[in-house]
């Protein structure tokens, strides 16, 4: 603290003026320091205020930005949903097409296998076995009778029956009458668009034809419990059975008799020579 006590001129102490000078210098230096500190404080507060202001304005702009992004994402979402719906629709359509192709593929395979089996059959028994396996396994037909033609007697005689006793079936005279006459009248392999010869106890009568020659008949009488009706694919397979089994039966018959010729010739030669 600066003392203002009187100063003796003889003393070695500084004069009043010098001390006043010193006092004033000190006073102004402190004032200057104080002002500088005020300015700094003011600057600090101002920058703080600016930071607060910036902070206050950020959420609003951020909200705006986020809102825009949400709107954009929602628009994208709508577009993706539209595309997904379209893809699902297309996929469903492809699935249905694929299923239809698979079913057709299966159908063609069944027809191919059936035709091949008939072509490989060399005896009447093999042909009859193939007919039985195809009707039973491929078509679900559990009750049927196979008749063969006896040309000399002009009759259809029961040769094999599935699901029942063949003895229960009787011969049918040719030319046939009624619904059967209509079926046999075409003199060609059966077609799904042709007459079926149905009656109360017969679902379908399938002529077995080789060219124009009638060699037999399948009378379809009932299905397996799990089979309810014939479908389009089944009818296509029956067309194959009608034609190919007819040819196979005739081929087997010719083959069987061809084998008898050398034997008959040998017998005759032995008889003549002997």
């Amino acid at each position, binding site marked *: 603290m600066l003392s203002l006590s009187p100063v003796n001129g003889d003393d070695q102490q500084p004069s009043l003026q010098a001390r006043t000078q010193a006092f004033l210098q000190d006073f102004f230096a402190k004032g200057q320091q104080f002002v500088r500190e005020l300015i700094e404080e003011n600057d600090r507060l101002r920058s703080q205020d600016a930071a607060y202001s910036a902070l206050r304005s950020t959420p609003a702009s951020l909200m705006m930005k986020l809102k825009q992004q949400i709107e954009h994402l929602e628009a994208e979402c709508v577009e993706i949903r539209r595309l997904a719906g379209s893809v699902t629709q297309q996929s469903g359509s492809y699935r249905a097409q694929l*299923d239809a192709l*698979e*079913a057709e*593929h*299966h159908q063609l*395979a*069944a027809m191919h*296998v*059936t035709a091949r*089996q008939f072509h490989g059959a060399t005896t009447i028994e093999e042909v009859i076995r*193939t007919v039985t*396996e*195809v009707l*039973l*396994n*491929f*078509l*679900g037909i*559990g009750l049927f009778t196979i008749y063969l033609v006896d040309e000399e007697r002009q009759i259809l005689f029961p040769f094999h029956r599935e699901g029942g006793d063949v003895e229960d079936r009787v011969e049918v005279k040719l030319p046939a009458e009624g619904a059967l006459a209509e079926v046999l009248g075409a003199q060609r392999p059966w077609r799904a668009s042709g007459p079926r010869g149905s009656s109360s106890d017969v679902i379908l009568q399938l002529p077995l034809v080789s060219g124009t020659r009638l060699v037999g008949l399948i009378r379809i009488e009932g299905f*397996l*419990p*799990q*089979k309810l009706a014939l479908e389009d694919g089944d009818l296509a397979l029956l067309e194959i059975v009608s034609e190919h089994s007819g040819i196979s039966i005739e081929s087997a018959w010719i083959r069987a008799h061809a084998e008898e010729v050398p034997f008959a010739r040998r017998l005759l030669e032995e008889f003549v020579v002997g």
Partner: protein
Amino acid sequence: MTETKSLNALVVEDSPPMRKMIVFALSRIRQLKVVEADDGVDALRRIAGTKFDIILTDINMPILDGLKLVKRLRADDAYRDVPIIIITTEGADEDRQRALALGANAYVTKPIQAQQVIALVRETLGLPGEP
């Protein structure tokens, strides 16, 4: 690309056209290697030489029918848990119950559709569906 594990399937069926149709259906499953047997006895002969991952069998067959075959297989430790699918014309519920009681895993009645057999075999073996 990962290599797919190959699986062995045995088709036991005495009717050649039916056997061909089942083999045709199974040929659509790339992982399967299919072996054919004419009847139950032929199946036992084949089983002696190869370990099969799945067996598809008919019921009505000469000498050893499908149900007897299932019984024999379930008594064999190597085939106790191997899936067996019956494919038959026998549509009665008691036949189905009998086959399942003997240890068959599934029962399908003829006439079959290829897709039906393919889907069943895939599901039984836990194979993914084709795209």
